[in-house]
């Protein structure tokens, strides 16, 4: 079963009289449990596509289904619920709430979901251990390295067992060693928990790690390569 189905997805940004065709008819199916990277030059539309799949932004045309939900027909509240329960995000930076500790950042999503405090605590500590952050529970984001912060973000993204994790250039601010560590960790989570990961990236290493590499150019899928 495909967890993401994009059919002829189009997105046009209008700024005054200027129209930017960010997506010009993207067709893309992503299988459940995938570990996929979207690559392509700057401005090609990777972030736009991720945002649309994640329900952060609306497409102008086309149909998008995520986990069986036709999200192009959903309203803001339904999208918020979908994000809360089915989609995890990892951004390039500023992923964490600065005034909360690592543990609290992970718990925060479960708080929004209404998970009981004791369960929140045990799930959050377990996932932080999984991503290699045992002992750093009570550090604030400012007291963690960039790589550690991204691990917290991944932990938060997967703690409530979403169908997909969307990661927009998650390694862009990391040195190659931390980047590799992070990628290994995500691959482990992908294999262990079966969570689908979709990345956008310029990073050669991410492309190497990915099991499927989709090249986007000028708002279109230019190349789709499944590695074995």
């Amino acid at each position, binding site marked *: 079963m495909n967890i993401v189905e994009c059919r002829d997805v189009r997105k046009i940004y209008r700024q005054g009289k200027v129209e930017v065709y960010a997506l010009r008819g993207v067709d893309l199916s992503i299988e459940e449990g995938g570990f996929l990277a979207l690559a392509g030059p700057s401005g090609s539309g990777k972030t736009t596509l991720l945002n649309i799949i994640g329900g952060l932004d609306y497409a102008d045309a086309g149909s998008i289904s995520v986990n069986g939900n036709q999200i192009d027909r959903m309203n803001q509240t339904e999208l*918020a*619920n979908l*994000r809360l329960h089915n989609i995890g995000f990892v951004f390039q930076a500023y992923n964490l709430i600065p*005034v*909360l500790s690592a543990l609290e950042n992970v*718990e925060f999503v479960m708080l929004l979901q209404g998970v009981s405090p004791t369960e929140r605590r045990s799930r959050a500590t377990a996932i932080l251990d999984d991503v290699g952050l045992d002992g750093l529970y009570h550090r604030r984001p400012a007291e963690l390295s960039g790589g550690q912060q991204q691990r917290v973000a991944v932990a938060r993204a997967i703690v409530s067992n979403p169908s997909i994790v969307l990661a927009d250039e998650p390694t862009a601010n990391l040195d190659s060693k931390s980047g590799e560590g992070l990628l290994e960790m995500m691959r482990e989570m992908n294999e262990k928990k079966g969570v689908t990961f979709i990345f956008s990236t310029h990073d050669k290493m991410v492309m190497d790690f990915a099991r499927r590499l989709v090249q986007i150019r000028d708002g279109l899928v230019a190349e789709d390569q499944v590695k074995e």
Partner: protein
Amino acid sequence: MYLQLAWRNIWRNPRRTIVIMTAVVIGVWAMIFLGALMRGVSAQMVKNGIATLTGHIQIHQRGFRNDPVIENSMHEPEMVEALLAEYLPSDARWSPRVRVDAIANNARHSGGLTLVGIDPEREAGVSFIGQAVVKGEYLDAGDEYGIIVGQALVDKFETKLGRKLVFMSQDTERDIASRAFRIRGVFRAEMEATEKQYAFITKGAAQKMLKLGAGISEISILLADYEDAESVADNLKEVIPPDSYEVETWRELLPLVTAVLKMYDWFIYIWYLVIFIAMGFGIVNTILMAVFERIREFGLFRALGMKPLWIVKEVLTESFFLLTLGMIIGSGLGLLSIHALADTGIDLSALSEGLEFVGMSRVIYPVIIIRDIVVANLVVLVLGIAVSAYPAIKAARFTPVEAMART
């Protein structure tokens, strides 16, 4: 954790938090402290009014209040006094009086005033005059020709202790009644007007001069607590024949004071509002600033699936903490300043000439009224939260995409 989030957020920029909290503290302090001073002024007005000669409740012959001539006196006060002895609470005191407008003369001056015939011993338990004599002595019950006058009157008439004053008035037979009295004592009062207005003689002397027999003009009653005036008056109205007698409380007897008291209520609440408006701009600005600094964070909240309403709640919780902290400190300081002034008061003698006509004293003591403190805090809290709604809604409107675009 939700509350922790808000709590920690307000301390992210401690300087800003302290600035806005200081504004709230000063605002609440000003509300409570100046409110208490205004209450002090009005309490003093009531007290002066009551102590001067009003008492808490008065009883007159029906008609006397409309036309206070001697013919409208109470002719059978014994019966009323018997009822009072039976129905008043045991700690209440009362005093019968004769009251008549008269003209005072001496060799150089003449002027109008109110001659008050009192039962010296009982009057001392009811009105200020018992403690007010500063020169000479208080009246004896049997004194037929003694009089006590105010210092201001003594000055005005250029007379002194032991000298005579001649008083003229109309008696019950509509003849001119005239009698000479010797100044036995001089009194001082809170207000100069009182010193000029009243002269005290014995009840017996007044009754003889006016050919009044046993009649009196009024009975003034002092209760243990002035708040009881209404309920006690209602009880008395049940037993004292209403077609012959009128029972009135200080609120009815001092209509000016009552009106001023009402006005003060408004003054205080307008004062609260004025302060709040000044403070409100600061609150809105500060919170707006804090919100704009955190656009990315609110975008992140939204991306994580937080509903806009939660974001509104989050921002409002932050301002709730700010306001509550400011309110606690401000109220505390307000109460402290009131406490500090409780014994000394604030001396307004320099201004007292102008203030006296409304019945204000020379020294005002702040008075704490719980309701005022509650209202002040409610104003700050409710309106504070209300104005914070604007930045809160702004925060909820940032969409994740535009928030994330601002790197």
